[in-house]
């Protein structure tokens, strides 16, 4: 009997070769991510045709190097958005982490203290935000907006000047390229970011916490009635985002080797845009971390394209970014809308 079913299945497979390609593209779950990936590739091909030196492997790697911090940020944001929440504080928390790192290192603290401390602090801030949202029913937008004000304010309180980082560990993290075959290099931060993505993927898909995150996005009240740990998950999600912001802040301080209170303004919007471009629904419940990584790469590619273009004035730069974003989102939307 097993044999017959198997045979039947094989038969249907050969019949529907086309279907196998099409099915995932039109599924509400995988469609948006796949289409983002395809469009990204298309963008690269177009860029490569237009600009010399664009379609090189190092440019791709540089996308990872330059956006490592944003990838980590987007990962944290993905958790939050999957539950249907939003976190506006991430940009300010990145700035705060760079400030704390720079100030403490300048004060002679060792990185072995500074790094964990920052991660604990930002996770704690996330915890506070999560509690505010869960216990007091404050809307995520507002709770995280308050956290954004707070983090940014604390930056100024620490110092309103930029502070350089000269600590050897940080310098090493910033300036030690990791060689790859073929004369290519990548930074430790980029590797770290990819590790974070892998862990996030595992957590979201292979742990009960991760599944509960999706459940919350589907319907919070249903998740509650199903007996899932809604409170814990909802708070934890903001802790995860806080942690990721802290880590992202560290990566950012590796990247810039300095702390500055005005840094990363508006980065939360980049992170949100990346997550959404990656196919995650803002209302929660659908989406993948890999999608968010793709989203970051899309934003990065737009940036790269503009630099390679090299002739755009400030305003055309903005219009161009908006335009590319529009084209991308509309294409994505139209391609996924064909399902139903």
């Amino acid at each position, binding site marked *: 009997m097993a044999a017959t079913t198997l045979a039947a299945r094989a038969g249907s497979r050969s019949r529907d070769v086309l279907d196998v390609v099409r099915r995932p593209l039109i599924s509400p779950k995988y469609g948006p991510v796949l289409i983002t990936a395809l469009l990204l590739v298309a963008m690269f091909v177009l860029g490569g045709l237009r600009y010399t030196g664009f379609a090189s492997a190092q440019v791709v790697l540089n996308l990872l190097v330059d956006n490592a911090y944003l990838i980590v940020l987007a990962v944290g944001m993905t958790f939050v958005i999957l539950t249907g929440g939003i976190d506006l504080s991430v940009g300010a928390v990145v700035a705060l982490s760079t400030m704390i790192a720079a100030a403490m290192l300048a004060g002679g603290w060792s990185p072995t203290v500074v790094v964990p401390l920052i991660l604990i602090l930002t996770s704690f801030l996330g915890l506070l935000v999560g509690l*505010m949202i869960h*216990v*007091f*029913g*404050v*809307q995520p*937008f*507002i*709770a995280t*907006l*308050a*956290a*954004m*004000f*707070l983090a*940014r*304010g*604390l930056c*100024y*309180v620490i110092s*309103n000047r930029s502070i350089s980082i000269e600590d050897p560990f940080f310098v090493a993290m910033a300036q030690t390229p990791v060689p790859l075959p073929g004369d290519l290099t990548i930074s430790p931060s980029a590797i770290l970011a990819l590790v974070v993505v892998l862990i996030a993927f595992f957590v979201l898909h292979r742990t009960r916490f991760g599944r509960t995150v999706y459940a919350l996005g589907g319907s919070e009240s249903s998740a509650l009635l199903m007996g899932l740990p809604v409170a814990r998950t909802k708070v934890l999600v903001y802790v995860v985002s806080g942690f990721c912001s802290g880590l992202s802040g560290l990566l950012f301080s590796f990247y810039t080797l300095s702390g500055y209170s005005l840094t990363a303004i508006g980065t939360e*919007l980049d992170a*949100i*845009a990346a997550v*959404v*471009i990656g196919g995650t*629904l*803002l*209302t929660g419940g659908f989406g993948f971390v890999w999608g968010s990584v793709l989203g970051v790469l899309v934003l990065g590619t737009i940036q790269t394209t503009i630099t390679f273009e090299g002739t755009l*004035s*400030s*305003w*055309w*730069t*903005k*219009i*161009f*970014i*908006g*335009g590319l*974003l*529009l084209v991308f*989102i*509309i294409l994505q*939307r*139209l391609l996924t*809308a064909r399902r139903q």
Partner: protein
Amino acid sequence: MIKIISHRLFWPVVLLLVLFVVNLVAFPGFFRIEVKDGHLFGSLIDILRNGAPTLIVAIGMTLVIATRGIDLSVGAVGAIAGALACSIILDSPDPGSVTTVVTAVLVSLLVAVVLGLWNGALVSVIGIQPIVATLILMTAGRGVAMLITEGQILTVNSPPFKVIGSGFLLGIPVAVVVAAVIFLAAALLTRQTALGMLIESTGVNPEASRQAGVRARELLFAVYVFCALCAGIAGLILTANQTAADANNTGLFIELDAILAVVIGGTSLTGGRYSLLGTLVGALVIQTLITTVYTVGIPPITTMVFKAAVVVAVCLLQSPATGAAIRRWRLRHLARADRQAVA
């Protein structure tokens, strides 16, 4: 008594009063309103006038939020309107004439409407999530505004235009009058007709509303157009107030202030029931907060922390959990009083 405490707007109003008191302590003349050169003059008037643009944007935002949407592009739309008006006035042979100014204002508001249609189309026809749809215009719109001014600050010397931002009508600042008119218009338009109910219903349950025959698509268009129009008007007021178009800074972050005002006013970001009155209180809270920073002389480096504290305070006080705690406390209190009465 319980009714008052549990009213949605109780805590925002209390907070507003607290801020007033703080100001009064820092500066005893805070409540003084004099008549100077035939118009009202005083801190409260400043709060009203400076808060007018935020309020106007927040009114539009309230309706957008009621449909479960959000409009991040208001600042950019305002900047475009301002830039356009200034460049039209500058290019005209007679910048000081009323007709020039009226033309400029009408054209720029028309453009604002078009931008609203654009947002509406992205959201309702193409079905892009509002936050992303408006993010596009937020980014590109600033660019367009700068394109119009070529990145310069366009200073106009046109008395009729200046009136919009800092003129007076019967002693009351024109900006305040405009805000009041928009507020009343929005309130009447949505509450005296069925528009408000239909908007709320689309916000709460779009599919159910569709099945009930609500024209959700047209409604979304209308709401985004209205919001863009509000943004355009606010942009003109801001621009006229400084008699110059500053494409970079006009209305920068006004979307955050507006959203904050809406939420402080008790409208939920998940759509549905909205309160324009709440938005009014919210906008006043925010502007008073800003003014407080200036009058009390809070050092710039702690301003943000102060803002955070206030926002957290109002949110926590407004929260249902706090309400429940207060109710419990009152019950216990009453019970004790009863016991004492019996004894």
